């Protein structure tokens, strides 16, 4: 008695004359392997949605509770840098998508170019982000012992409504969530860029342009997801409580 006990298929594997080296032993077809990998990636992205979901929840709650503090905090963020960063990230998503396209059309040079561009844009994003973080540090807006409510109690901009000191303290919550959300996002960027370097190395040596594009596809999904997170962070943190232009 062994594994032959079960009725076997009519020689399933005969139909697939081609068995590329990258087909793992437990898959029947390349198509199955590709679909499986991308489905797995999507499920992982679902967990990411819920991971950020907790932070969004906290943000929404405290924004409603301490609206004035959140408005004041939001107005200290540099909208120029924020918008630039959004554009940079969208552009990097585009180059990533083009990278996927190059891989699918078996264009090694294109793939290498677009991966490099994606890395570059990712680094630009992180650079701008660190500039923003540095600004917050200079302004004493980093929550904790060094946090100063001065800018909120006695705002320099005359459009800002001065906050009562108790409300101004709650700006710390805004900045905490700002750092937690953008920090978590930046962490995903850093991980993404590290993987990109790895992919670039292999792409240089001709991987992914031999018809096996799953890895690039799935990394693309991850990269776009990180982009989507930012697409929501940007309006929530920077935009929705802007002062109107006078």
């Amino acid at each position: 008695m062994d594994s032959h006990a079960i009725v076997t298929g009519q020689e399933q594997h005969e139909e697939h004359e081609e068995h590329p080296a990258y087909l793992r032993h437990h898959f029947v077809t390349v198509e199955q392997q590709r679909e499986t990998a991308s489905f797995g990636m999507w499920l992982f992205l679902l967990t990411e949605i819920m991971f950020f979901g907790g932070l969004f929840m906290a943000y929404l709650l405290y924004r409603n509770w301490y609206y004035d503090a959140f408005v004041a905090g939001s107005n200290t963020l540099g909208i120029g840098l924020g918008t630039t960063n959004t554009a940079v990230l969208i552009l990097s998503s585009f180059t990533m998508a083009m990278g996927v396209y190059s891989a699918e059309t078996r264009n090694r040079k294109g793939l290498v170019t677009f991966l490099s561009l994606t890395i570059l844009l990712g680094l630009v994003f992180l650079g701008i982000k660190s500039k923003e973080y540095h600004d917050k540090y200079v302004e004493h807006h980093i929550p904790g012992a060094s946090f100063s409510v001065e800018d909120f109690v006695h705002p320099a901009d005359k459009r800002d409504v001065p906050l009562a000191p108790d409300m101004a303290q709650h700006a710390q919550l805004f900045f905490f969530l700002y750092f937690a959300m953008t920090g978590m996002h930046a962490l995903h960027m850093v991980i993404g860029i590290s993987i990109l370097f790895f992919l670039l190395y292999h792409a240089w040596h001709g991987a992914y342009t031999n018809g096996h594009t799953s890895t690039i596809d799935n990394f693309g999904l991850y990269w776009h997801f990180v982009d989507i997170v930012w697409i929501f962070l940007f309006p929530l943190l920077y935009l929705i409580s802007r002062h109107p232009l006078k």
Partner: protein
Amino acid sequence: MSTIVTLPNQEEARLPKLSYLNSEYGLKSWLLTGDHKRIAMLYLISITFFFFLGGAFAGLIRLELLTPQPDLVASDTYNKLFTMHGVIMIFLFLVPSVPATVGNFVIPIMVGAKDLAFPKINLLSWYLYVAGACFLVYALLNGGVDTGWTFTTPLSTHYLNTHVITAAMGVFIAGFSSIFTGLNFIVTIHRMRCPGMTWFRLPLFCWSHYAASILMVLGTPVLAITLVLVMLERTVGIGVFDPTKGGDPLLFQHLFWFYSHPAVYIMILPGMGVISEVISTFSRKRVFGYTAVAFSSVAIAVFGFFVWAHHMFIMGVSNYSALVFSLLTMLVAVPSAIKIFNWAATLYKGSLTFETPMLYAFGFMGLFTIGGLTGVFLGSLGMDIHLTETYFIVAHFHFVMVGGMLMAYLAGVHFWWPKMTGRMYPESMSQLAAVTTFIGFILTFFPQFIVGYLGMPRRYHAYPPEFQVLNVLSTAGATVLGIGYLLPMLYMPWSLKYGKIAGSNPWQATGLEWQIQSPPLTENFVDIPVMDHEAYDYEWLAHKTEHEVTTVG
């Protein structure tokens, strides 16, 4: 329609020459394996270790509660004991118990695949489990943690100086282990089914694991981010959950229970899957109302996301919200009732035998019924006021988790033991263990319902003397229960060498896993099978067995 089943002749069975156990040797071949069966074994060993570690804490807790005075250990030690008991039992035993061992082992075979969709991620999941466990053990060895497994803020964030961050980190990492297991199962069940294996030909075990996996994938990340916030709050002290700084401690409760209530279903659903398999096999009968049982699993998973605030009825949630959550809680109880009745109906006109897995399954049905019905007590708003946070709730979730899940886990391990090892466990010894466990369990936890209605609060180190009788009963029961759990630890390893050779299908069960050799080959199937019959088709099996006999003879 009737089926005669003749059990195969045990004397003729031989161990196969080549199997996943002897395909490769050496520690490295185990620690770097991609084989779902070997990873299941790794899990089995690790969770058994943590089960007995958690059990030892439980033993100390019960011993302390033998007398009303706080005389065995200091208050802080007692708090650490129940915290570590809870954390270890939930995150290191119950959550991975059935899915990561039995599920890991049989799900790919059940769907007719050679492995899980992502073997490396499966291995990674075990390493994450071990890493998380290391953090928890580190916290334990360095003085433990005393937050309670619920990490309630602001207690955990501002008022304790134990290893909260280390423990939270451990749970965080173990959480990702569970996410990856769930992810793997969902993808495998969707993508790796063999030709002919339609959704409604899947064994119910797969359905319940599918439902549990959805909860793992969508619920666990919320716990992860919540623990990150707790760790951040402890280190930088901003006050997201601190009322004196404008935060709301109830937000923590919301986020925490958003995972931790579905986690209850993560723990129990795979157990329900085991029971479906066991009841069907030992009745030699298709599960009554297959579709109802299958969809009730999915219903539990879906409704499971809508009921979390029933842990917070007295905590100051809005009354309106409490009303809605109570109503939804009542709804989630219904699918469980459907399952119980369907299993009972499966027995009708069956041909029943009472091997150990079946005894455990009966134990499950009885204890889970009590556990489920007492859940209705707690889901009813008014009753919850009096009962919550007392020993009633302790008894309730132990009936579900230990009486339900642990019984199911033991049923599953016994049921698939011949498949995993190729050898039978000793039958009479294990039946004794099953009965001992059942008696010990009732004796341990039933008095806790009574003492709970009397008002004895949970997590109490010392208690008023009039509760002593019931507590003594409970401790006595725990001793019996402990013996019941230790017995398998003796005879299971024994059976590895001295057990009878099982043969490929000792129970005459219908699942694909029983149609291949025991223990299976590394790649499970030589050729991908084609499923040409319904799940639990005993006539197909009888026909096949007959056919085999004639061809061999």
